[in-house]
């Protein structure tokens, strides 16, 4: 899973939609991998207004990337090739292959295996918040 995608993810539990603490999801025990991809400046230009910079900083800190600028690059900074390449590396080439994603609100943990996160919810969670014990049983039972 790319960091770009992780930046757009929210908790799938319905009751968490409105809660501020549900975003961003927090990585735990994440294993990272670097996969080279062709550099596409147009895509970065297109996507950058929609990236939640605060969320990206939190995630990058959790994963141990220290050098994230304090604010989102805007205006002239977007024409700087080096900035764009750094963003490309961070957003598109950095993958989380194993680990867990954890919601700050309900505590649900989404397992990530081979880069695929399991966002299936037991049916009672599709409606309201519920006990965490059951959730954890479910998360362990995930097999791919």
């Amino acid at each position, binding site marked *: 899973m790319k960091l770009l995608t992780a930046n757009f993810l929210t908790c799938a539990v319905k009751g968490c939609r409105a809660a501020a603490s549900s975003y961003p999801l927090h990585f735990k025990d994440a294993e990272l991998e670097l996969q080279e991809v062709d550099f596409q400046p147009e895509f970065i230009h297109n996507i950058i207004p929609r990236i939640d910079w605060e969320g990206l900083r939190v995630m990058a800190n959790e994963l141990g990337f220290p050098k994230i600028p304090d604010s989102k690059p805007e205006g002239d900074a977007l024409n700087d090739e080096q900035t764009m390449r750094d963003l490309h590396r961070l957003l598109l080439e950095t993958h989380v292959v194993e680990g867990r994603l954890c919601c700050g609100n309900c505590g649900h943990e989404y397992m990530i295996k081979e880069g695929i996160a399991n966002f299936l919810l037991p*049916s009672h969670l599709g409606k309201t918040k519920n006990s965490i014990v059951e959730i954890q049983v479910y998360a362990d039972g995930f097999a791919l």
Partner: protein
Amino acid sequence: MSRPEDILPPDLYYGDREAGRYNTSSRVKKVQAEMSHRALELLDLRTPSLILDAGCGSGLSSQIVSQAGHQVIGLDVSASMLQLSLEKDDEAVDLFLSDLGQGVPLRAGSLDAAISISAIQWLCNAESSDVSAEGRLRRFFEGLYASLRRGGRAVCQFYPKNDAQRSMISGAAMKAGFGAGILEDDPGTKNSKLYLVLTVGGGGLQGDITGIVNGMSDVDVLDARRSATEKGRALPSRKGDKAWIMRKKEQMTRKGKVVKANSKYTGRKRRPAF
């Protein structure tokens, strides 16, 4: 032909065996590729974009979208299908195991566009008593509507079981807030394909499906809204009036009955008897 939707829920039906068969059949591949290209054409994307593939399955459609230079987020409920998609090893595709009927777990306004190939009819099946087909469709379309940016589009190709299912699906999309239209390729033939074209308002995009197909060759627009308003304006034909008589006479002629010739007196009111 039996419909897989009637046999088992998707996560069980597409187990290793059926998923493998799906992924190796050259006919399925060809049809899926054609539909994905058509969907891309309808989306009309000019820049590299972030696209959701809802019900991506073994990644046949995701691959075509990523080859066009876009980044793809694929959701599917079948682990076996995702395994096959993973084996394609496409860096531009990110996969999630997720049930569309439980919504789309993405932040509001994050996607440029969405496609879905032969998937959303599965939402019409409710496997347990605590969910309903309407509820599943509603959660999917509401989630999709929220996660698309303003001016975004979604194209969903689907195989409805019957007309009721077709209107249930398009009705659910409209209730979620989408501007919806249905494009039918090769209507009336065995290869007929339905595309639900959804638009999110705003962002400098003109209106609905008619704006999208405008300029495409070989597309006839049947606008039910227009004919409905025209009918509303014309006086309704009542039993016994001239228009009604003429219609009946024409019907009878077509049936081969002997019908009196029309004259200036046909259907004319008699003068009141003294």
